[in-house]
């Protein structure tokens, strides 16, 4: 039973927690990349991007389960791809807005300093503003990602064999109350474990990534100083 919850039902693998994690990482990464582009566009062109911001607000008003249903039924996507697109759009609506709000708060003295140093606009955005925004918005992003990991359960509406669907199928055919309870408690335990691992792992990975970025930044600024 635990194996089925972990990797899916026989004949429908990969599934279970493994598939939930695949959906989570794929949609989370795609939404983060799209969110960065959205935030940069909104801050660089605040008036021109009003329509985009309105569309993003509208997107946040639609339940994920309905988005997934929409993409599965009215597009040429297969159920799996429709689920991924729905999750990515849902995550983008939240991540984009988080990044935009933090990027708007980028301190003016730092921006002026970069301009005085003669940094190019693209270098300023990519090497200074974006890392600053990601670093500051980290806790808000983690809160959203915890929610996203749990929300992969909405794929149950398409019957995609991720953890919630697997738990539903197994618990529906469970012959006794004890077995039914064991299946659901195990699924809950797996979600809790994955959430805790995410809370521990992401800051660790982020810390490593930002250390590398800082080293690059330091090397870059030393080169600029030598050049000046």
């Amino acid at each position, binding site marked *: 039973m635990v194996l089925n919850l972990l990797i899916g039902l026989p004949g429908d693998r990969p599934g279970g927690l493994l598939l939930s994690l695949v959906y989570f990482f794929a949609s989370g990464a795609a939404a983060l990349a799209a969110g960065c582009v959205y935030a940069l566009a909104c801050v660089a062109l605040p008036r021109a991007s009003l329509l985009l911001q309105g569309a993003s607000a509208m997107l946040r008003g639609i339940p994920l*389960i309905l988005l997934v*249903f929409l993409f599965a039924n009215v597009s040429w996507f297969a159920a799996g791809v429709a689920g991924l697109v729905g999750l990515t759009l849902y995550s983008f609506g939240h991540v984009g807005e988080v990044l935009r709000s933090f990027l708007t708060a980028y301190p003016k003295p730092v921006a002026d300093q970069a301009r005085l140093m003669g940094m190019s606009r693209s270098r300023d955005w990519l090497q200074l503003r974006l890392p600053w925004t990601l670093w500051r918005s980290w806790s808000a992003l983690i809160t959203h990602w915890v929610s996203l990991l749990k929300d992969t359960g909405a794929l149950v509406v398409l019957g995609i064999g991720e953890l919630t669907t697997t738990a539903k199928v197994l618990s529906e055919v469970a012959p006794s109350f004890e077995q039914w309870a064991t299946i659901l408690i195990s699924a809950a335990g797996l979600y809790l474990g994955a959430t805790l691992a995410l809370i521990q792992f992401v800051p660790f990975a982020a810390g490593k990534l930002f250390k590398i970025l800082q080293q690059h930044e330091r090397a870059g600024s030393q080169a600029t100083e030598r050049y000046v």
Partner: protein
Amino acid sequence: MLLSADVWLGIAGTLVLWALSGTLAVGIGLILAGGSLSDGRFVRLLARASVNLTRGIPTSLFVIAAGIGTMHLVSVSDLPIVFPGTTAAFQQLAWAIMLALALGSAGHLAEIFLAARAALGRPRLEQAAVLGLSRLRHAAIMARESASIALPPTGTRLIHHLHNTAFAALFPVADLFGAIEGQASATFRVFHFALLGCAIYAALSGLTWLLFRFLEAAFAPPSAQRARTRLPAWS
């Protein structure tokens, strides 16, 4: 007519589910937040464990557990019939799903209430403590003081909670998503009904947001209200 009777019933079902489970979630959230601040170690640990459990488990799983669990449990026949569009035979199921939805949001709301209280700052918390008020009066003052901080994230959470009511469609409980799904299957006009569903959910989310903006203004600290009234009418 733009909306069919089934869709109207779905909207009514969603609103009843949302209002009942949202109110219950706020109540449980307040109890869990109070328990997290308790002097008793056991109560505090129990409250923290409950907060972490309800935040770590997906609402969809809570709903599935409630739905399938109701079929395994002894039926309770004297529950009031309040969920429009759901047949009398499935009212107990609707009550169980309502409870599951409330549990799915309770931990998040408890964290919001705790964060809002902490945001008041230590001097204000100590000031309230030395007033020598009864527990109830003290709690009421704290709630009034932290309301303006707690209301925006509570509104956001209750919009998410509104979206979570769609999980009720996994069982024979009338709700908006179920009605949209049913109409789309019956008429094959999937795009039309999916878009209609998006528009209704977005409108309901917008109304919730407006309600909380109104509450925010009503519960704003007196200094903020004074500043607002001093603004010229055209600003």
